[in-house]
């Protein structure tokens, strides 16, 4: 299992692995929004939580189809399916590797982009916390979607259509945490719900994803 995690991290960091793409995308979206909306600071401050969360969500989406598609193409997925580690663990580890290479950099970069969008000072801590709690759910839900479309030619677009609706609860509670935090209100209820979504999907979805992989490998 640790070998699989290290391999996936190494693959992501090597040339063509796609590490940094999501982060660059996140950066560009967050820079484009003030250019499009205009430099009205009160408007920016109001939309900053939503913009940052939508940008993070789209940046996560960018690299989802690589989770299983590459392993399926080169036969690694079949070899992993016949290996002594359970396929559920393979899914969980690959989801974790996806989060470490995509979600975690977003969490770390978010405060800088909050500055660009004039996020109120009280919101920064909640922004980082909500992304740290919420982006793992994006990776886990995304790996379930990737397992569903593995083996399909150009499944990336279909994957986006499948997965984006499933991201909605995470998005709603994630932005709510930041909004309330920025306004100085109590964000604990949406924060707890956000954590519940992450824990629930991390506990259940690897099983569903492994089932989907087994069907798609037939």
């Amino acid at each position: 299992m640790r070998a699989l995690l290290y391999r996936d991290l190494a693959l992501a960091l090597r040339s063509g692995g796609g590490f940094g793409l999501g982060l660059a995308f996140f950066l560009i979206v967050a820079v484009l929004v003030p250019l499009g909306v205009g430099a009205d600071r009160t408007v920016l401050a109001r939309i900053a939580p939503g913009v940052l969360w939508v940008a993070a969500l789209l940046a996560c989406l960018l690299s989802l189809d690589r989770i299983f598609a590459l392993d399926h193409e080169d036969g690694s997925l079949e070899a992993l399916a016949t290996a002594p580690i359970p396929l559920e663990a393979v899914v969980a580890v690959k989801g974790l590797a996806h989060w470490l290479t995509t979600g975690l950099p977003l969490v770390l970069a978010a405060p800088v982009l909050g500055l660009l969008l004039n996020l109120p000072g009280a919101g920064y801590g909640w922004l980082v916390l909500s992304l740290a709690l919420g982006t793992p759910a994006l990776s886990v839900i995304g790996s379930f979607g990737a397992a569903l479309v593995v083996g399909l030619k150009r499944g990336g677009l279909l994957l986006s259509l499948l997965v984006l609706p499933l991201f909605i609860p995470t998005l709603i509670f994630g932005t709510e945490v930041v909004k309330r935090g920025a306004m100085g209100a109590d964000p604990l209820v949406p924060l707890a719900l956000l954590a519940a979504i992450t824990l629930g999907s991390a506990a259940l979805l690897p099983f569903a994803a492994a089932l989907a992989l087994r069907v798609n490998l037939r």
Partner: protein
Amino acid sequence: MLLEARGLACARGGVPVVEGIDLALAAGSALMLTGPNGSGKTTLLRTIAGLQPALAGVLMVAGEGAAYGGHADAVKATLTVGENLAFWAEIHGAGSHLAALAALHLGPLANRVARDLSAGQRRRLGLARMLVTGRRLWLLDEPTVSLDLATVALFAGVMQAHLAAGGAVLLASHIDPGLDAGRLDLGPFRARSAGVLFAEGVA
């Protein structure tokens, strides 16, 4: 018996391909599946590997299961030869990948990035994975594709050593792999419904 199948029927894409297959493989024995393209060699191997369920029949694979070497080599292009093999060794809990590296004469290529390998070298790396699985039953789907004659002979030696160590090999091949193996022609086991579908397709 490392492998035993009775009345096994397999489907590909929902269409029955072969049926009524009886086979048994003891430690130290090898069996070669032959038959024209589409006769179900790959389907049978994938079913035995556990990648797809059998339509009917009884299938028993001893112990921890089989090592499956399919058409694709399970090689990561951006990792080196050594890293690729070490990964599979660790996944299967094998101690060291160096013996497997040496057995297929991959030692000098250990630090080469797999992207730069020739097709035959990549195949050798794919076959070396069989050694690090530590599994006794090997299922090989056309293992000699893109290998030169010397490497075919080298791999025959590897398979013979595996058999001598109490392993068993079931392989699908169109050419003689240089192994003292029984043969099973899948032609007569074509599923009747597959024949019907085929005839309809022609008409």
